[in-house]
C-alpha cells in the first residue's frame, strides 16, 4: 500500500519530499523513478554489482539495499553531485582519458566508489586499487583502463571535490 507519511531526503544538498513512496521501495528506485536521478544504475538490485553505489551520510552503500524510509533525513550524494555542472572531477577526467568507459553502465557506481577510496588512500598500489573496486562489476573493460584511471587520478585527486 502507498505510504501516507511523506518522507524527505537530503539529496546532493537539496531537501526533497517524496510523494507516496511504496513501503519497501528501495532508495535506488526512489532516486531514479521518483526523483529522476537516473545516474545511479540498477544492474542487479541485490547488492552484488555496485552499479548503484552512493554515499549515505559519508558511507559508501548500495542504494538498492537501502529502504527509502530508512534514509529519511539523511545525507545522500549521488553521481550527479560528483562535479559541478559543466565541469569534471579528476576521476571523471581520468576515466575519459584512459578509455575506462565503454558501455558506461558501471561507470557512475565506480566513480563514487573510487572517490570514496581515494579520499582515504592517496597512494594506492595496483592490488589495493583492484581490491577497492572489486565490489563494482564491469563486463566491458576487463578493468585494465579503470585501474589505470585510478592510478592517474590518485596523483591529482583533491578530496574537496564532489561527493565525500
Amino acid at each position: 500500500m502507498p505510504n501516507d507519511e511523506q518522507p524527505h531526503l537530503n539529496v546532493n544538498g537539496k531537501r526533497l519530499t517524496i510523494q507516496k513512496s511504496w513501503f519497501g521501495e528501495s532508495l535506488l528506485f526512489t532516486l531514479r523513478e521518483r526523483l529522476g536521478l537516473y545516474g545511479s544504475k540498477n544492474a542487479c538490485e541485490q547488492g552484488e554489482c555496485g552499479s548503484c553505489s552512493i554515499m549515505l551520510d559519508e558511507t559508501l552503500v548500495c542504494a538498492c539495499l537501502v529502504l527509502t524510509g530508512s534514509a529519511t533525513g539523511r545525507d545522500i550524494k549521488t553521481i550527479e553531485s560528483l562535479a559541478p555542472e559543466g565541469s569534471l572531477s579528476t576521476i571523471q577526467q581520468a576515466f575519459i582519458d584512459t578509455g575506462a568507459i565503454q558501455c558506461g553502465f558501471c561507470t557512475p557506481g565506480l566513480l563514487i566508489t573510487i572517490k570514496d577510496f581515494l579520499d582515504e588512500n592517496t597512494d594506492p598500489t595496483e592490488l589495493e586499487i583492484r581490491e577497492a573496486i572489486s565490489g563494482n562489476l564491469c563486463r566491458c573493460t576487463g578493468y585494465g583502463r579503470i585501474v589505470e584511471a585510478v592510478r592517474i587520478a590518485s596523483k591529482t585527486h583533491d578530496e574537496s571535490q564532489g561527493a565525500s
Partner: protein
Amino acid sequence: MTTIESYKTKSGVGVSAQRPDAVPKATGKFSFSSDLSSHNMLWGQTLRSPLPSARIKSIDFSEALAISGVHAILTANDVPGKNLFGLEHPDQPVLADDLIRYAGEPIALVAAEHPEIAANAINAIHVTFEELTPLTDAESAITADPIHPEGNVIRHLKIDHGDPSVTGDLVIEGTYEVGMQDQAFMGTESGMAVPSPDGSVDLYISTQWLHSDQNQIIEALDLPEDMVRLTLAGVGGAFGGREDVSMHVHLCMLALHTGRPVKMIYDRNESFLGHVHRHPAKIWYRHHATEDGQIVKVEGKIILDGGAYASTTSAALANACCFSTGPYRVPNAQIEGWGVRTNNPPCGAMRGFGNVQTCFAIEAQMDKVAKALGIDPVELRLINALEQGDTIITGQKITGAAPVKEVISSLADHPMPGPAENNLLARPGGTGRTTDQKHIKRGVGFAVSIKNLMFAEGFDDSSEALCQVEDGNVAIHTACVEVGQGFITLIHQIAEEVLGTSDITIIPADTSIGSAGSTSASRQTWMSGGAVLKACEAVVVKLIEQIFEDEGVKYENFNGTLVSEDGTKTIPVSEALKGRSFHEKIVHRHAPTFPLNNKGQGDAHVSFAFAAHRAVVDVDQELGLVRIIEIATSQDVGRILNPLQAVGQIEGGITQGLGLAVLEELVMKNGVIQNANFTDYLLPTALDTPPIEIAALIEEPEPGAPFGAKGIGEPPTISSTPAVVAAIRDATGIDLRRVPVRPEDIALE
C-alpha cells in the same frame, strides 16, 4: 600493465580519439534504456514458466485483473499476428499458448501503475500445468521424440575434407565439455513502447540489430513496417545477448492495448531467463600427427545444445565446425556437428560465437600432441600455423592477411612475469589465507585461435549510411547499434579523415534508415564503418563536382583537404562545405560468401582474424583455487583505428574468456537454471582479473576492409579460455576436459 600514451589527440583514423559519449557517461547523464520515462507511463512485467516442459491446462487471471492499478493482462490469445518469432527463422512463441518448452518461457504480460503492483498481479495469475518430463541431454535429443514441430535437430553439418583414409604416426583422442556461459551485460533488458492514436507504436529499446527486431515485431503485431518504429535506447553492453528479441513484442502489445506508454526493466534474475546463452558443447576429437609434428588429419564430433528454440544455433554450429581444426593447416578432416533442441534455455549468440567451444577442445588436443611427441607446444603450433594462401577444411583459400606465425612468435617472445607479489591478495584464496606460498604451483599455458569476421554462408550482409550536409553542417546517420564498443567514436574519426572535421552530428540509430545489420560477428567497423566512409566520400565527390562547375578548377581530396590539380590552391573540405548542402546515402556490402555444400565445402566466409594468448597462473591444488597472474596476447588486427578502444576490446574480451575458464557457468538441474543471479553466477571482478599484457598487435592490412582494419572484438574471448586452462594443467598435471574449471575439478582429482 599496458599503458597507452597520447590519450588526447585529434580524431582521425589511427589515433586514440575520445568517445563522444564519454562525458555524459562519466557524469551519469547518459540515458540508458532503463532510464526512459514518460508522462502517464505504466510498468510492464512478464509471467514466466517455472517448469522446463509442461502443457498449459488453464490460465486464470481474474484475481490479478481485479487488483487496483492493473491495466492489462495479456496472454497468447492477445497476440495480434503470428505468435512466433526468431532471429534466423520464427519458431518461438511470443507467449506460450499450449506447450512450455523451457523454464523461463513467457506466458502472460501485465501492465500496471507501479512495478510492485505489476509484481502482485503476476503472483495472482494462476496457471495450471500438466508437468512433462523435460528432455535435457543434448546427445539423446538427436534421436529422442521431438519437443518441437520442427524436430530436435536444428542443424546437422558434415565437413568431409581431403582423404579419410589417412592416419598419423600418433593418434590422440579426447572428449571435452563447455558449460553454459552468459553474456551478463550490466544493463539488463529494458525499454519503452509509446503508442500513437493511429494504432502505430514507437519502441525505444536496447538491442544489437534494430531492423531484425522490427521484422519480427511486425509479424507478431500484424502491422506494416511504417507502423512499428524502433529507436535505439542507451545500451549497457550486449556481447551477443541482445541479438534476439526479448521484451520487444511484449512492450508493443501492452502499449497498444492500454493506449499508454509502457516501460519494462528485467531484474537480473529475469535477464538470465530472458535472453539466450552461449551454447554448451560436447566435443570429441581424434588428432593424427606425424612424428615431426604435422597434423595430418582431424576427426571430430561436436554437439551444441541449442535449448528449446533455434535462435542462431545453425550459424553457431557452422562456426564450430568450419573452424574445428583451429588456425592450423589440416589437409584431411572429417567433422560432424549437431545443433539440437532440448528443454534447456535457448542458446544463441555470445562473443566468439561457436569458435569458443571448439577452440577450447582443439587447443587441449594440440597440447596433448605436443606432449606425446616431446615437442614444445609453441613450436607445434608454429609448425602447423596457417598462412596466407593456405586452405582451411572447408576448401576455402585464405586470400587475406593471415599473420598466424607472427602472432604466435611475438607472444612467445614476450617476457614472463616475475613471482607473485608477497601479498595475500595476490594468492589463490586471497586474504582468506588458505595456503602458503610454498604450496602454490605455477603454470603457463598457450593457445591460438581463428575467428571468421562478419556473417557467412551466403547471407546478404549490408549496412546503409547517410552523410547529410546542410549549409556546411554535417550529420551522419546509420542504424548501427552502439553497445559500448565505440562505433560512434569511429564515425567521428572517419568524418575527420574524409571531411577534415569531427564536428559532426550523429543522428540517433533508428529504423528510418536502412539496416546496418547486427552489432555482432566483429562486423560493424567493416560494414557500417565502410558505409560511413563511402557516404562521406560520396559527399566529397559531389562537392568537387560543384566546385568545378562554379570555378572551373579541379580538386582532389587528401585526408580532408582539397588540393587543386595544379597544386596551387588548398582548401579544407569542411571550409568548402560551408553554404552547401548534400544528401548522400549508400549501402555497403562485403564480398559475397557462399553456402557450404553437402561435404561442408565452400567459400562461406569473408575474412579471418587470429589471436594468441598466454596465461600464467598460480594454483593451490589442495583447495583447487586458481589465481591468474597474467594474461598476455598478440592479435592480428589488420590496422588499429583507435589504439585506446582496441586495448579496451582486448582487455574486456580476455576477461570474458577467463570468466569461462574458471568462474562462469549457468548451472542447470533438470532444465532449470540454479544460479540466475549475480550472487551465484560468478563474474570476474577486478581482483580476479590479472594485468593484461599486449605483446603485439600485428598490423597487416586486410584487402577489401575499410582502412585495412579487421574486427577485433571477438578473438580476445576465444583463445584466452584454453590458455588459462592449459596453464592450470601445466601447474597441476590434471587432464581438465571441461570449462569452467571448478575447484573440485582440481582438488578432488
